[in-house]
């Protein structure tokens, strides 16, 4: 009888030890695959809930981390929205030649990952003449020796910064929201990577960092905004921010400056003297997929 008792206890003990070891091994393997940065950021609060001191602390931590990683000194701004502003964008379709200079200027300005994965916030579509609204027949990968090509028009698309953004509605953790000046931004440290916002966006404005971004160090742009073009991390969503780091200081976004044909316009919709208001008052403007009632602030127009 003693033997049976011993056997019963030792088997129970053995199995208990085995299961505890398994559990420990399981959790250790998951935890150890988290990087040091992830461990540091684990308890970081949502940007909108941070006090100014906490924000300063986070900025200092990030600046130190970027210096360690890239050897460059970053200036991370957390500048808030200017009062009485609502940013609007204008794009003159009669002048776009599809040269994609805006795409690469944006990539450079906003520290986007160049390859593995390649993140481009602007996508230029090529449409056959006669076709404008049904984007099913668009070509994204055109690569002719010269543009513009005869018989085609070009339509660049990026985040439209909607007034009623479907992406903000569906984000389960409030990681993306609309700022008071109308920009839809993402707190990259709060995003959990569920990609629901990407399913909800009707304009494919959002892209995902499928892996850790690869940015060549010599092309880094060191004047960044926390909600804008600071170097991101893997598995967070990002998108065009209308160059929040530039426009809140009054500068034109990078794509506006890069366009060789002057197709792109930008301004404050609430300022009656701005360029964008001039365009809306005098040109025939339209917005993509207006029937979805998302109220985008990206106005396309044609000459007169």
């Amino acid at each position, binding site marked *: 009888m003693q033997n049976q008792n011993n056997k019963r206890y030792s088997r129970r003990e053995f199995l208990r030890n085995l299961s505890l070891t398994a559990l420990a091994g399981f959790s250790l393997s998951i935890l150890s695959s988290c990087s040091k940065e992830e461990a540091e950021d684990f308890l970081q609060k949502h940007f909108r809930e941070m006090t100014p001191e906490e924000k300063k602390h986070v900025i200092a931590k990030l600046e130190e981390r970027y210096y360690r990683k890239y050897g460059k000194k970053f200036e991370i701004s957390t500048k808030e929205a200017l009062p009485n502003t609502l940013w609007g964008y204008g794009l003159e379709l009669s002048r776009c030649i599809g040269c994609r200079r805006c795409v690469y200027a944006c990539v450079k300005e906003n520290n986007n990952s160049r390859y*593995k994965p390649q993140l481009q916030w602007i996508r230029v579509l090529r449409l056959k003449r006669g076709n404008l609204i049904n984007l099913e027949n668009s070509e994204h990968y055109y690569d002719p020796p010269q543009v513009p090509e005869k018989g085609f028009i070009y339509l660049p698309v990026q985040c439209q910064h909607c007034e009623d953004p479907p992406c903000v*509605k*569906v984000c389960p953790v409030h990681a993306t929201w609309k700022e008071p000046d109308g920009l839809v931004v993402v707190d990259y440290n*709060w995003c*959990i*990577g569920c990609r629901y916002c990407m399913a909800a966006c009707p304009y494919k404005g959002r892209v995902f960092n499928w*892996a*850790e971004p690869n940015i060549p160090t010599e092309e880094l742009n060191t004047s960044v905004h926390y909600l804008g073009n600071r170097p991101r991390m893997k*598995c967070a969503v990002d998108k065009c921010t209308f160059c929040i780091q530039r426009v809140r200081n009054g500068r034109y976004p990078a794509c506006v400056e890069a366009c060789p044909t002057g197709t792109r316009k930008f301004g404050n919709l609430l300022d009656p003297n701005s360029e964008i208001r001039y365009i809306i008052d005098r040109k025939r403007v339209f917005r993509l997929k207006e029937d979805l009632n998302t109220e985008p602030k990206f106005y396309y127009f044609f000459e007169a």
Partner: protein
Amino acid sequence: MEKFRETLKETWHFYRRTLSLVVRGSKAYYAWCFFLLAIVFVGLLFYLKQHDLGLVETNMTDQVSWGLYIANFTYLVGMAAAAVLLVIPSYIYSFKPIKEIVVLGELFAASSIVMAILFVMVDLGRLDRFWHMIPFIGLMNFPKSLLAWDVLVLNGYLFLNLLIPIYLLIKFYYHKEPNWNFILPFILASVPWAVGIHTVTAFLYNGLAARPFWDASILAPRFLASALCSGPAIMIIIFQIIRRISDIKIEDRALFKIAELIAYAMFINLFLLSSEIYQVYYSNTSHIAPFKYLFQGLHGHNQLVPWIWAAMAMNLIAFFLFLVPGTRKRLTTLNTGCFLIIIGVWIEKGPGFVIPGFVPDPLGEIYVYVPNLLELMVSFGIWAAGLLVFTLLVKVAIPIETGKFSHVSYIERTFRREEEDQAWK
């Protein structure tokens, strides 16, 4: 207070006793458990690779940003909701042959929900930030975000489907009468809650104006109809297995009744599907593109076409097998029908639902998504984990239900052992 402490002590004692149940079994039981553990382990290794390098290791892209994981999630939420099909006839119509197997059905629903939650967890890009979704601790976007609703209702459903069977099992173990005033509200609540979880899952697709394939009001009814097909079908199979390996008596009548209800649910599913197809093909707007991709191929891309037609054929054959009493009441054809439905509905509701939503994408691009090895292995790992959970739960539930495992026998055995020990001394 005293009663509460007493209940806690009883529950703890019950838990410790069930551990001994779980670790002891036949050779076949060990083989099955270790087989499942091996698959779980392989899945875990692949998941760690994905966790390390990011979701770039899967075949998902910006164009098709949800793939095999969310497809399986959708299917499994449906399976979990199907427990309601057994609860309704049992408790409301007091159909006795089903009453005994309700507990097993609810345990199955609990394991399905565990699998569904695991699939969402592996799909998240940043699992370390999951705490952002916990209400009050994180920042949950309730009530606007349907994913937030999903988190709440799924966890609530899991809680219900663990509370009810475990409560009943503990009471059976101690040979006590369950306090129906306490447990019946939970049982009655689980019926609309089951409808709720699948409706919320349907709504999370339904509200997206950007995806015309999903932006159809018919989605929630279709989800419920197809859920009520696949869940009971898998349970018919499981009950036959349980019947064979244990003493639990499940009458054939119960199985045939479930099959009859599946037939009606499948009819509704097919009818709703035909309504969708008529509407989109007759009006012939640009919204036809995802349907064309699914059923005919779009611009030469036709990877999903053979799959969906196979699923249609399977569903139709299974429908007739269940409708005709002759084939329904014969176990071979019944089981064939069940397998056909399980696979057919998985294709129709998993990949055949999630992937065409992304093709063509809002800017007209077509990306052909085929899951890669890593996604397949992680998915197998999660299915194995769910089956393991179900096996362990059932390993406890069956002896209690048959009366073999109860507190009375424990006391008797301990008393006898002490007597024998005394005799030795």
